[in-house]
């Protein structure tokens, strides 16, 4: 008998990925609607009401400047939340046993969850972009290829981080600590609502240590053609972190940390 075939691997991967997509689509009121509602409020309050008083930011209308940042914020939180809640959910319900007993290789299990997270992240990103067009219909994407590349890479990166969080999580508290106390502050201070050029020198230097700044600004480069940071440096760093987190996730799965006794 031959070892597991490529066709079998593809079927198992598709099964897990479609299960993950079906999961967040089944609860679309909890997964797809909230970002649309929250972002609409941001656009109304910060874009239409306060935005005109702020004026321009880096040569763009404030609402226009905010759009890439708000899309990125949604992509980051949703891709992370999807994987952390789904993988912790299968651990909690013990349905992870279905995966571990099956002949699926570890990398397929990881890829299936990551593709689920990426699908939700990208879908939410598209939804928020469509919402933004209601408030700024004349918006045009400057560099579509770069925009899509950063969108997907960001969703992969934060899906991987959600996966690692879920592996170590022992309770539902553990899956909300990092999004609440680490991700959210870093995102808000990562240039979603402002350009770091308006900050005093000290805080500008401090902001440069925030990894979210690179993700948000690279995406802004793709959508608006402006950035506070080097694009090649940002893309390299995102790719390096994806490599590191992928290796770490596979190591955790191989060693059975958090999933096997």
């Amino acid at each position, binding site marked *: *008998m031959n*070892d*597991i*075939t490529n*066709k*079998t*691997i593809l*079927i*198992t991967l*598709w*099964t*897990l990925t479609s*299960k993950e997509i*079906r999961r967040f689509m*089944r609860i679309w009121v909890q997964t797809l609607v909230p970002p649309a509602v929250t972002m609409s409020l941001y656009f109304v309050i910060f874009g239409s009401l306060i935005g005109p008083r702020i004026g321009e930011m880096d040569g763009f209308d404030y609402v226009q400047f905010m759009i890439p940042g708000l899309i990125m914020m949604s992509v980051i939180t949703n891709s992370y939340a999807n994987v952390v809640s789904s993988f912790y*959910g*299968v651990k909690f*319900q*013990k*349905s*992870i*046993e*279905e*995966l*571990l*007993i*099956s*002949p*699926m*290789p570890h990398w397929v299990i990881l890829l299936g969850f990551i593709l689920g997270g990426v699908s939700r992240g990208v879908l939410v990103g598209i939804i928020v972009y469509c919402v933004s067009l209601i408030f700024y219909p004349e918006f045009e994407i400057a560099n579509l290829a770069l925009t899509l590349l950063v969108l997907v890479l960001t969703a992969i990166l934060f899906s991987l981080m959600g996966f690692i969080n879920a592996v170590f999580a022992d309770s539902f508290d553990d899956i909300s600590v990092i999004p609440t106390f680490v991700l959210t502050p870093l995102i808000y201070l990562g240039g979603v609502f402002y350009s770091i050029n308006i900050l005093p020198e000290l805080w500008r230097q401090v902001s440069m240590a925030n990894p979210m700044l690179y993700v948000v600004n690279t995406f802004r480069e793709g959508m608006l053609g402006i950035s506070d940071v080097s694009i090649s440096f940002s893309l390299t760093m995102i790719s390096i972190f994806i490599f590191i987190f992928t290796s770490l996730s596979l190591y955790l799965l191989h060693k*059975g940390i958090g999933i*096997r*006794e």
Partner: protein
Amino acid sequence: MENFALEISNLRKVYSGGTEALKGISLKVKEGDFYALLGPNGAGKSSTIGIIGTLVTKTSGTVKIFNYDIDQNVSIAKSILGVVSQEINFSQFEKVIDIVTTQAGFYGITKSLAKPKVEMMLKRLGLWDKRNDQARTLSGGYKRRLMIAKALIHEPKLLILDEPTAGVDIELRREMWDFLKEINNNGTTIILTTHYLEEAEQLCRNIGIIDHGEIVVDTSMKDLLRRLDVQGFVLDLEEPLTKAPKIEGFELRLEDSLTLVTAVSKDSSINNLFSELNNIGINVKSMRNESNRLEELFIEMVKK
């Protein structure tokens, strides 16, 4: 040369807290066998099953499923193994039909190929009418059936059931026994752990007893039952008695005025007892075994 569905050699498991759950057990289960693995709580049954299904990491030793080592040929070994875990392990929020179809997909069976298999399996296990119900709405018995459907959908050659009938009513238990006998007759090797010793006696041809991480018995069911020296009988009397009669060669105890209890060694004949009782004017209305024979043996084995 005999083919073995499962070969375990020197299997050891030490948990991180230092508990040695398995102390180097070795076990062989023949192809086509219906094997009972018994043991008290904490004896090491679930650790053994966990290691076979790769849910528990072993400390040392080897496990082969139909000659495929779970370390070297893990994908093939897993593809011919089905496990029904002790605890419910499916997503409670999915539909019954989706759970089984997805499980088939995890074994590389496409949706179109899985469809007729899933229909047949759900019908066979009485779940077809509930196929569109969310799993969490099923009763305990139906959840158990769903676990079995999931474990069998890829037609494994070796099926391991970890207490499959725990908490299941008698009628459903009997139905499950018939179903398991049928799939065993069709060629699937089955290993069963259970606390219902009657279940093991009814279904299994061979038996292993594990205690404190060691195999203390590994033999045929017939051989094990032959080791039983004494059987207890309960006699229901037609007329009430005030004290137990004295009959040579038998120890009789009065449980209540209409019930006599006795133990008969395998050298004695119960006919002699009936004759003697008849001679002193005691008529027996009916008779039954005092307790499950295997239960007595089991307690004896794990006491040693």
